[in-house]
């Protein structure tokens, strides 16, 4: 399952979709909105996606991971729209026979999503707003 959605993500449902009876290990990464990124008080984030391409890019990433780590199940859900601190922005869940593969595959997928998938976030903080990673002058370490 690959989903780009404006509705709150049901984490348990993503996990259930990724689970498999033959798998002994499920790893789940949940990206949430921080209340204090880069020393600013974050009021909310605006996420937008180039949805059809985002789904295609995530599919390619998943296919590579599934092959490399012999995944038995997987699911990715990414939120768009307005998100407040504490809300879930992205969930990646994978299942594999053993735990090492599940950790490696899940980390590979979220790293690749953050590097390649056409989704953007604008941080709205007290006193301004900023598209994350857009400008070279910003030194940002996004989670």
């Amino acid at each position, binding site marked *: 399952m690959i989903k780009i959605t404006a509705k709150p993500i049901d984490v348990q449902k993503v996990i259930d979709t990724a689970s498999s009876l033959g798998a002994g290990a499920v790893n789940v990464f949940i990206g949430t909105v921080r209340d204090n990124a880069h020393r600013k008080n974050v009021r909310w984030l605006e996420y937008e996606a180039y949805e059809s*391409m985002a789904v295609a890019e995530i599919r390619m990433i998943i296919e590579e991971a599934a092959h490399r780590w012999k995944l038995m199940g997987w699911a990715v859900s990414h939120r768009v729209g307005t998100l407040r601190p504490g809300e879930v922005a992205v969930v990646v869940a994978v299942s594999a026979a053993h735990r090492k593969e599940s950790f490696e595959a899940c980390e590979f997928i979220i790293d690749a999503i953050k590097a390649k998938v056409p989704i953007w976030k604008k941080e709205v903080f007290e006193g301004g707003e900023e598209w994350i990673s857009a400008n070279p002058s910003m030194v940002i370490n996004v989670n």
Partner: protein
Amino acid sequence: MTERKLKLKAFGIAREILGSREVEIISSAQRVGDLRDGLLKAYPKLQGLKSFMIAVNQAYAAEDILITETDEIALIPPVSGG
């Protein structure tokens, strides 16, 4: 070069710079690289971005890819999902 009408999608900060999520431009650009050069001139604020990619038909496109009028062309500023 013949000028053509091209439809562009723009996202994130590129959408704000172009002023809309869907923009029609008149361009003589034949390849992705030409289009990029034209856009950087037409919208100088794009020069301030760390990078921007062009996607053709929902895939990142190399500079020498030929563009046709029916292609879905999109401006991809630095992504920041997750």
